[in-house]
């Protein structure tokens, strides 16, 4: 780690290059294919069918799958409710934006399973994205307030550069995380987005922790002559274990979700792993190298001014 931070400007240029590459690839993928959005964001239709005979559950699922394939769709997700009920409900979701196809699919299901056309036992409805949009709007406002708050905190606490560093830690986690979601085709849902926004806060937190530790060491007699980059590295090395311990435990929890082989849980696990990687990358490497290189440049400028003043005084 000391070697990496020996020349922080070089490290910064490498980390920015890698980060920019990830974001660029993410943008290209989103431009062509969009995000892998969950049904919460719309673009899905939901088929609800109440059936009387429990034995026919598989017949209904396979039959609906066949009908959807005929129109070029596939079953994205299905659930069953009320299995002990008099009439359990099968709920099937498929990705589509076509109202005409939905009507045709409903007609085909009616004829295939001999359902009464006027019956209310079958519905094919478009899933609204209003709920998800509303929730995202609810999330954006506090996140924006937090962004301003972090900048103000950093500025008043130390200087404007520190405030900028806090903002970089926060924003870059979100951008890198979204790009990795796009690259890995991780499903974007309200849960994965909430996880990402919480990770952004944790990223700012971790950067604050390591940087303030370095500053507090600089204020001691034994380390006041050390460069901040060295102190930052020393802090990273000294506190490595106590930060890795809980982080790796949480990583193991998310990795465990992948092995449940459940569609939504796997995507949630993947989202969690991406968030942890984003936190580590942005808080330590991107923001750390930015802040250390800026502070070192400032201190070099100060030293130059001091030595020039000394030279002038000596000449006098």
């Amino acid at each position, binding site marked *: 780690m000391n070697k990496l931070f020996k020349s922080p400007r070089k490290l910064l240029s490498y980390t920015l290059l890698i980060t920019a590459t990830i974001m660029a690839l993410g943008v290209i993928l989103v431009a062509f294919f969009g995000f892998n959005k969950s049904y919460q964001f719309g673009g899905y239709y939901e088929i*609800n069918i*109440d059936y009387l005979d429990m034995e026919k559950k598989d017949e209904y699922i396979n039959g609906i799958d066949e009908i959807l394939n005929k129109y070029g769709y596939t079953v994205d997700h299905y659930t069953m409710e*009320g299995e*002990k*009920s*008099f*009439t359990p*409900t099968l709920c099937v979701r498929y990705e589509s934006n076509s109202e005409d196809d939905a009507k045709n699919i409903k007609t085909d299901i009616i004829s295939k399973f001999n359902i009464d056309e006027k*019956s*209310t*036992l*079958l*519905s094919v409805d478009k899933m609204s994205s209003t709920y998800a949009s509303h*929730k995202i709007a*609810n*999330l954006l*406002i*506090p*996140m924006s*307030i*937090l962004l301003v*708050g*972090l900048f103000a*905190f950093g500025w008043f*606490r130390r200087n404007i550069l520190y405030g900028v560093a*806090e903002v970089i830690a926060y924003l870059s986690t979100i951008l890198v995380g979204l790009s990795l979601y796009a690259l890995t085709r991780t499903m974007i849902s309200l849960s994965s987005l909430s996880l990402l926004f*919480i990770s952004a*806060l*944790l990223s*700012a*937190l971790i950067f*604050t*922790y390591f940087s*303030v*530790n370095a*500053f*507090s060491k600089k*204020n*001691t007699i*034994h380390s006041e002559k050390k460069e901040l980059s060295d102190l930052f590295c020393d802090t990273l090395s*000294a*506190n490595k274990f*106590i*930060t890795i*311990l*809980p982080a790796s*435990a*949480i990583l193991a*929890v998310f990795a*465990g*979700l992948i092995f*449940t082989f*459940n569609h*939504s*849980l796997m995507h*949630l696990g993947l989202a969690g792993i991406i968030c942890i990687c984003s936190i580590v990358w942005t808080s330590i490497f991107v923001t750390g190298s930015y802040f250390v290189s800026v502070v070192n440049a400032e201190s070099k400028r100060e030293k130059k001014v001091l030595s020039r003043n000394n030279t002038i005084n000596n000449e006098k």
Partner: protein
Amino acid sequence: MNNYSKTKSTIIFIIFGLIFAIGTILSFVPMRFGSKDYESFLGAMALSNDCTDTVSAIYKYTEDENTDVNRAIDLMGKSLEGKFGKNSVNVYKLSDNRIRVDVSKPVTASGESEIEEYLAGFTSGRLKITNNSSGTANIEENKNLLEIDGWKDIESVSTKTYKGSYGIEVAFTKSGKNTFGMMIGGNAYIYVNNKAFPSDNYNKVELTSEATTFTIWFSSNEYIEYYKNTFESGMIPLHLDSETVEFIYTKANPTALTYISIAISLIVLALYVYAIVKFRVPAIMYVVLSNISTYLLLFLLQAMPWTELGIVSIITLGLMKMVEFILFATIQKRVKEEYMLGKSIETSFEDANKRTLSVILDVLTVCLLGGLSFAIAGKFELVTIGTTLALSAFFSGMVLLLGVKYLNNCYYAFNSTDASFYALPERTEGEINE
């Protein structure tokens, strides 16, 4: 550094130990505080995540000109939430003129039959007031007795106040042998949708002279909302068929979030064990105080009207506990560094606390900022997350900056010179390490 006497320190340790023990018991045992159900830690994890057994009812209804399904769902939901808690109830429309109600069995419910009886009440009638507990009307020619004959339809419900008392006025259809008068609370039995409201919570019931409204008077507004919702549910604009109600009993089915919150709780426990093994006596103080602050936080989250204790708050709390652990470990590492510079144990602790003050304050300020942003500007679950973050940051600050230091001072009264109790390395006389 102030050292306390052994007696004083012993008393302080006993007090904190008792608080810790009581809090630990409350973590596993739910209880009722007045009108509130206070969930245990495990109960909180079970809430709204299918970890409780569920009683469901499916009602069939027939439509007429007064049918308003959405309003009916709203009223039924409010009535059930008032009885069983917000997180425990789900009401929604099914196809074929059916409504489904799911009630997760709350900890204070006596059993599934209590829930079933309440659910059945939606179909079996509207309003009845009698002067005996058997539920039959008993008409007497005594103007101090209030009598309403048979079942009536509720037309409107409103609240009012009069000289420090709180009342709910219910208007109903006039018919039959109603008489006017007043009844002292102990003699009035009100039935709404076949569910009895005995007189424990109200002072009196009075009927107007026109015999079209009655008012229930309470000495406090504690039960107003609950009774109002229940009476309004008697106005459900939906004819539910009592013959075809179907009850379904579903066993607990934990979701992914449940497992994540259990995992995070176990991780925090493991960190506590690691801290005690690594840092010994100061870590024991820290673990006790951290747990006491957790119990206090769980209590506050349930007491506050804008927060709901559930999986989301448990996960947020777990993450904050990990941050707290990292800060505590940082202090202890600093103590070791100061000690190896040749300082005494007390001076090492003092200087370490001073030097790590900025780290703790800055980290917890960032948490507080995040918490306040979510709590003030967010909605629904974000308010709970924000409140949990902000309160955790505050309590962590108290634990790390004041609590651990205070208890360490108490411990010095018993043994202040043996470095092994503080997990500090052996140091020969005059040795200094840089």
